[in-house]
């Protein structure tokens, strides 16, 4: 409902037998609010209020508003229609076997709604009288956030501590560190080993896989690359010297080696 449709500020609506009721239309918040204001003119509590009288007052107000061509919002007119119906019901005896609530029930419901609104008005008025932060009472102007809990608690585990110590001591020790020699299989070492293995192989005169050899005497997996490289170089050297045959079926296929010396030579 748009309150600003009301384009005039005040009007006087004279009630039968009542002093002039000065109505500030802008001040009303809908038909129930208007009804409550009208009810106040009866100066009785809402249990004893005459709903019939109230309905008549309301209808008179709406009539007056129309007379001066006040554009009334739709819900005021809906309420007027409902009150006109209620008024007729209240004036006539209830028809027998009427469906729905009786006229007095309807009147009691309306009185009840007015009473609830009145209560909330009082509750709102009470809220308005309370001391409010920033109005009547003030909180600290420059609050400082508190620590989450008590004095600072630092998170650090023993592991953090030891890791920091180890890393730090190590860092400083590096200034006079001797690197352990890298473990590589030298060419000479590889050939030496290869020749010793070939001796056994020669007895059979058969092909054997080079990497098979190497794996047999290299336990540490980290050493395999250097063993393979040095071992292959040693193989090539031995081929050049006519000591062994080497064959590979295709790229990256296993390398096979065979001694060229036969058993008789060996025995000689």
């Amino acid at each position, binding site marked *: 409902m748009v309150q600003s449709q009301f384009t005039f500020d005040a009007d006087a609506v004279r009630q039968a037998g009542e002093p002039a009721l000065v109505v500030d239309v802008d001040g009303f*918040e809908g038909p129930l609010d208007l009804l409550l204001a009208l009810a106040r003119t009866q100066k009785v509590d809402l249990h004893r209020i005459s709903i019939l009288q109230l309905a008549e007052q309301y209808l008179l107000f709406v009539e007056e508003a129309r007379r001066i061509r006040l554009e009334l919002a739709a819900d005021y007119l809906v309420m007027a229609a409902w009150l006109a119906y209620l008024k007729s019901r209240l004036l006539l005896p209830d028809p027998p076997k009427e469906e729905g609530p009786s006229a007095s029930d309807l009147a009691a419901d309306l009185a009840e709604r007015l009473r609830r609104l*009145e209560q909330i008005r009082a509750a709102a008025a009470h809220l308005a009288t309370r*001391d*409010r932060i920033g109005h009547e009472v003030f909180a600290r102007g420059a609050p400082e956030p508190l*620590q989450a809990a008590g004095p600072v608690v630092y998170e650090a585990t023993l592991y953090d501590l030891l890791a920091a110590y180890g890393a730090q001591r190590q860092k400083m020790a590096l200034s006079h560190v001797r690197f352990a020699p890298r473990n590589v299989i030298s060419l000479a070492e590889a050939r030496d080993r290869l020749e010793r293995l070939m001796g056994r192989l020669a007895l059979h005169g058969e092909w054997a896989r080079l990497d098979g050899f190497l794996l047999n005497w290299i336990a540490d997996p980290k050493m395999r690359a250097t063993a393979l490289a040095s071992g292959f170089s040693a193989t090539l050297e031995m081929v050049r010297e006519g000591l062994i045959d080497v064959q590979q079926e295709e790229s990256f296929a296993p390398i096979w080696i065979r001694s060229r010396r036969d058993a008789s030579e060996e025995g000689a």
Partner: protein
Amino acid sequence: MSADAARRPMPAPGTLQEAQSAPARDPGLRLLEAMLFAAGEPLDEATIAARLPEGADARALLTALSADYADRGFNLVRVAGKWMLRTAPDLGFLLARDKPEPRRLSRAALETLAIIAYHQPVTRAEIEEIRGVSTNKGTLDVLLAAGWVRLRGRRRSPGRPVTYGTTETFLVHYGLDAIQDLPGLDELRGTGLIDSRVSAGLTVPLPSDDPGLKDDEDPLEPEFELSFAPEPEGDPDGED
């Protein structure tokens, strides 16, 4: 009893010094007043106790501090079940002189707030029924943005309307220790129109802001809770 005595109601035996100098202030009291002063916001007893030395009696210290500050320019008060320091109400008009005039709540917003406070959980339709007028969206937005009102859940009824309730901020702002500290609706007889007799058919709600959902309430969808507290649209005090 002197104010001085009131300030230190529980001198630990042996800590009292001779009267030639001011006795040292109880360390627990100092710590307590410092944390309440610094925080500026209400602190609950658990939070306070966690920052006090082991074995300190938070409740006793709070009681002592409350008495200590009773006659000062700011007092220790209980709001929303927590404790906070705030200026004395009688000085409000003197202090407010220097502060910018706070916005006044519109009548519609104040009534809506009162309805939510007393009848929570309450839907918008129920608010409108009580007020007898449709509620401008801006009205609820003002209350949501101020942090006084929150979306509680959804009523298990056709259309699953959102239910509204009040917040802790509401209690703090209005200086209420609990929502039940609001006077009963029947006690409020602003204009004398409300009958003092308790009406048989009418049950006046005892306000409750119990965060637990009621039987006829469902939880909000999570994404709805995230989009909580919308910005007020247009003139926040604009009205119906």
